[in-house]
């Protein structure tokens, strides 16, 4: 596995290294934002997206995590997967951690035991957090939909994104040339950059107020 490490270092030190690193960092920030992270706050457990990306690079070059070029030729895709996994774990741990004894007397007087748990039903706190997240996600999606309305090419990309994240597949689904898909992805990135978590939260609050 030393070869994998050396190859990763060679690429990161090579002419494309800086571009790959900044693309990874940008991805980490966007992904964290996608999960509701606000710029001026740290991620759960005190991490920042930059630290997560840097940590992934360190683990790969020290051999703690393996990038196998034979399995995944693109180092950026491999690193993104690691960042995605780490950020996902942070948020999942944060959102779902609630510790309490299994056996206790409920307010209605009944006694809860291990047998009271069937499968993996969420507890009320988890349900609440899930509901909040869904509400924010739907608001974010609505804001993006409003921004692309009336722009036919972007509208078709918008619909294709329900099916795929791959530019090639989206080109096939929309029958747009791949170069145009790439250029539209940049336009969509600009639109998405304006849909900040703060704006989404504000909009969701307004919507709740007005029913």
């Amino acid at each position: 596995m030393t070869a994998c490490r050396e190859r990763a270092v060679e690429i990161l030190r090579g002419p494309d290294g800086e571009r790959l690193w900044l693309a990874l960092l940008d991805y980490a920030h966007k992904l964290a934002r996608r999960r509701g992270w606000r710029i001026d706050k740290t991620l759960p457990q005190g991490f920042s997206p930059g630290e997560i990306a840097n940590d992934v690079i360190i683990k790969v070059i020290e051999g703690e995590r393996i990038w196998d070029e034979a399995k995944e030729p693109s180092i950026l895709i491999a690193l993104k997967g690691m960042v995605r996994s780490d950020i996902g774990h942070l948020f999942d741990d944060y959102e779902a951690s609630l510790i309490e004894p299994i056996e206790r007397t409920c307010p209605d007087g009944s006694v809860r035991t291990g047998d009271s748990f069937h499968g993996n039903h969420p507890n009320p706190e988890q349900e609440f957090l899930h509901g909040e997240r869904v509400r924010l996600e739907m608001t974010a999606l609505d804001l993006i939909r409003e921004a692309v309305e009336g722009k036919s090419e972007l509208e078709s990309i918008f619909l294709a994104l329900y099916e795929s994240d791959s530019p090639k597949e989206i080109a096939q689904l929309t029958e747009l040339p791949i170069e145009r898909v790439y250029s539209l992805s940049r336009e969509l990135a600009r639109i998405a950059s304006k849909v900040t978590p703060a704006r989404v939260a504000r909009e969701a609050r307004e919507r709740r107020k007005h029913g």
Partner: protein
Amino acid sequence: MGNADKIARETARFLDNLTEFITGEDQQLDESMDSLRAQGVDPEESLRQLRQTLSEHAPTWREKAARARALLAASFETQKARAHHTRSEIEGEIRETMDSMRALGAPVEAGAYHRNFEEARDEDLESLLEDLRFQRALLLKQQDKADSNG
């Protein structure tokens, strides 16, 4: 699965796909820089961080050699500084330490030390100075304790 669940899943999938799509593999250096700046991140600082990470965790032979050279130079400077710490400077510090110990009320037999100064080697004087500093620290600690007990 209820309709609400289905919509929630589709929404999440859409946003996941959107995140992947807008951070495609072909993203150019200037695009990432602009995007990071818009998110309040300094790309130049981030590039410095990458260089530092690579230098610390995967140093080239040049970096290893430069680090070894720097360590050697630092060690040489320390040795030189020690060598340039003259005998009279050490003696001066011993006197100052003893004076401050006397001021704290400790019975320091200066004469005994002074008699040995001329015979003692530099290493012995440095060791004596260390010892006196330790004793003075103890005295100060005792005095603090006595003060706080009224």
